[in-house]
């Protein structure tokens, strides 16, 4: 019996018009029933490799190919994409774009209809596939009236209806909130237990690492840098992945690598789960936090939101009497599931929505009495999709445009623009069109256009979306630098790692109500805050909770891996 699901030998691929290959000499074998995770820095070719598996590359996208890929014993180069559909199913990053029908049941029937199955067989497959992902009750709904997580489950179901033996996923949780992500993780867990072959490209290992049988690391040149069992790869290369390649690694291995480095625990294979790690860390001694954990006793309020309610024209009550304050020069994270009211409050703060009930004051500026054009002189807003904000044809013009709008003089404009370009490391790209920049560069430019006017408050909507560790670290370091000059930052995010590492304060909104405001480390002390807002506790928080149950005295202020390591006095 054939045991190989995928065999890739000496595979290289160059996009049409590109000077260098995106993938170079890839050799990889995936056995049937394996769960393989592909990781690597932004632009390393993860998506390209996924799209090569069913022939999208090169049959649709063109380009030069060397070497070969066998999927389910079929040579991909010799079969059309459509012919590969019953062998390998692909699920893409953006759930909305991959759905082509109006109704859920039609979407699932679409594949079986294409392979000329009988009406009875199609209906049977629709029922079975929708049941598998838990969408049987929603079959009559429009595809656009369900949540992002449900849309992604629908995309999986529509692929499953063709009964492929292998499923490939290209960053399937990138566009999802924690609820949607948990839904997809659940479906993948089920598939794994059903012995399906799964290959998934993702920058977020935390959710999937315990399911993986193989971890494949691609480097910047599109070569396989490492391939093997996840804990072995992370033990051997974890530090390099994080610090040199700029790739997110799970929190538990990251912690153990740092503890091993300081010789606090012995150098051995790192754990992947909290339970595994507990045994190694249960005898540690903790001391009081070092000076790196700062306390601010005299905070100055920059934003005051008082009893704000808001309803959309269709009657949706997005906010119900929300009140909170934001401190000057602090980073405040706003958390909550999609549709909770996070974006509504942010849009009210910049004047994009009319404030009818309640008051918002920003830097002694009453929002009710001012227009957006006045508010933007004091408040910057970075949208989730940076391209939406670009209005000029070059990087330099984008930045100088912001200065012109504010009313800077010509000689000042040039100097300030140059400073900003250098601060955000965009020197090489100054004359390029903003649309041709990489994802990380676009994000940096969008933040630069807002910071150049020296706002007192900067609002960021999902700034870490689709960014690797290196991009996020570089962006956050510039933001921290600006905060030291007095800029206050509000960040809407689903990324709990970023919240734990960078936020000074946290606001949690759920169903239009404010359910928590306080320090990030206290957020997990009560289930009331997190269950209702469906927030998922980061592994480090879970580990600390378990260690505290074992009577270890971990200081309350600890919330990042580095703080945890700093607070350890002695070891086993």
């Amino acid at each position, binding site marked *: 019996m054939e045991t190989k699901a995928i065999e890739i030998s000496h595979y290289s691929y160059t996009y049409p018009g590109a000077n260098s290959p995106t993938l170079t000499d890839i050799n990889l074998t995936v056995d049937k029933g394996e769960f393989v995770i592909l990781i690597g820095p932004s632009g390393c070719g993860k998506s390209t490799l996924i*799209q090569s598996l069913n022939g*999208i590359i090169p049959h*649709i996208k063109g380009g030069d190919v060397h070497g070969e890929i066998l999927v389910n014993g079929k040579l991909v180069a010799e079969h*059309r*994409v*459509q*012919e*590969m*559909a*019953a062998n390998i*199913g*692909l699920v*893409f990053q*953006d759930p*909305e*774009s*991959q*759905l*082509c*029908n*109006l*109704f859920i049941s*039609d979407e699932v*029937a*679409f*594949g079986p*209809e*294409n*392979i*000329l*199955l*009988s*009406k009875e067989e*199609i*209906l049977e497959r629709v029922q079975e596939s929708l049941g598998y992902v838990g969408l049987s009750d929603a079959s009559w709904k*429009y595809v*656009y009236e369900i949540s992002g997580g449900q849309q992604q489950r629908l*995309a999986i179901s*529509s*692929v499953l209806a*063709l009964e492929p033996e292998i499923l490939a996923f290209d960053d399937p949780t990138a566009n999802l909130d924690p609820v949607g992500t948990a839904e997809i993780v659940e479906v993948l867990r089920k598939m794994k237990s059903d012995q399906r072959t799964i290959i998934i490209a993702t920058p977020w290992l935390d959710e999937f690492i315990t399911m993986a049988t193989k971890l494949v690391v691609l480097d910047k040149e599109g070569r396989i840098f490492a391939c093997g069992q996840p804990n072995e790869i992370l033990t051997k290369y974890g530090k390099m992945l994080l610090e040199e390649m700029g790739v997110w690694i799970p929190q538990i291995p990251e912690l153990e690598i740092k503890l091993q480095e300081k010789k606090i625990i012995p150098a051995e294979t790192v754990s992947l789960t909290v339970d595994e790690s507990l045994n190694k860390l249960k005898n540690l001694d903790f001391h009081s936090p070092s000076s790196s954990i700062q306390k601010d006793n005299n905070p100055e309020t920059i934003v005051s939101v008082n009893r704000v309610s808001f309803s959309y*024209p269709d009657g949706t009550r997005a906010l119900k009497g929300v009140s909170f304050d934001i401190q000057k020069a602090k980073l405040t994270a706003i958390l909550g599931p999609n549709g909770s009211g996070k974006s509504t409050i942010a*849009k009210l703060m*910049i004047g*994009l929505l009319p404030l009818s009930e309640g008051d918002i004051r920003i830097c002694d500026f009453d929002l009710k009495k001012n227009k*957006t*054009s006045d508010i*933007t002189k004091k408040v*910057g807003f970075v*949208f989730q*999709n940076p*391209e*939406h*904000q670009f*209005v000029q044809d070059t990087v330099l013009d984008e930045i100088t*445009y*912001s200065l012109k*709008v504010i009313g800077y003089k010509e000689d000042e404009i040039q100097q300030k623009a140059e400073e900003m370009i250098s601060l955000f490391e965009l020197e090489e790209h100054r004359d390029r069109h903003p*649309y041709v920049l990489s994802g990380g560069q676009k994000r940096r430019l969008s933040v630069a*256009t807002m910071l150049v006017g020296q706002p007192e408050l900067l609002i960021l909507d999902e700034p870490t979306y689709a960014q690797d560790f290196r991009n996020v670290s570089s962006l956050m370091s510039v933001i921290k630098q600006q905060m030291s000059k007095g800029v206050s930052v509000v960040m809407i995010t689903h990324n709990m790692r970023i919240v734990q590492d960078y936020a000074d304060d946290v606001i949690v909104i759920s169903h239009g109500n404010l359910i928590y405001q306080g320090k990030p480390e206290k957020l997990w002390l009560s289930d009331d805050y997190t269950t209702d807002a469906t927030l998922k506790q980061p592994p480090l928080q879970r580990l600390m909770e378990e260690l505290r149950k074992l009577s270890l005295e971990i200081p309350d202020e600890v919330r990042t891996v580095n703080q945890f390591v700093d607070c350890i006095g002695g070891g086993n």
Partner: protein
Amino acid sequence: MGKYIQFQFLRHDSLLHRMDALSKLIFVVLISFAVYFFQDVRQLVFMPLILFSLALFAGKIDWKVILCSFSVFLAFGFFVGVFQLISNASAGEIIFSAGFIRVSDVAFYKAQIFLLRLFTIGCAALVYLWTTNPKYFAIGLIYLGIPYRFGYAILVALRFLPLIQTEIGKIKDAHLVRGLASEKGIKGAIENWRRYLFPVLANGLRKSETTSIAMDSRAFGLYKKRTYVEEFQWSKTGLALVASMLIIILVLGWTWGFGFIQPRYS
């Protein structure tokens, strides 16, 4: 008012919704042709009333949605009417004058006819859009022998319309934050489109590429034919609607007369 303006399929269980897509299409085509042969304002006033009643009683569409959405085409018709008033100002006898504004009897007649024609065709298209699941429209086209790729192209386009609307809203907001408010007037509208077109096109192309490869990845286009869970069937109620419309047109024509495409005035 905005929330009542609907240019998409509205799901209900109604007589019109249950009718086959092709009969309803023939009904719309019949109306569109008929209004070009009607030259009496009374005939043309009759048609939107029929469409309003059909949408309300046979389509179970909310009366506010009908009125607000119909009014969009009334506004378009009004502009066309004003254009007729201006371009025919010198023809016929002056029946109204105030300052430099002069309205001749010919211009007034033509303005009414053109307004009502446009209004009627728009209303008929809306009734079709509200009550026809695009899937059945695509299946109907395929029944007529049109390649299924073409039918699906229309289906995907309709699926993406709401997404494009959302995208434009986000771009407007993002530009406003950059200090570029939406401009007013005809010149402003052109400038707005110039600004929004590039990001909408860039994102639209990216999304449509994903859609296209996601469809191919699910075997779309593998064979010349496809099977369908639901196949096209003429409905008796649909054919009855077409027959009724034909009778109404003939009766109206017999009562007040038919003409040619250009309105007659005597």
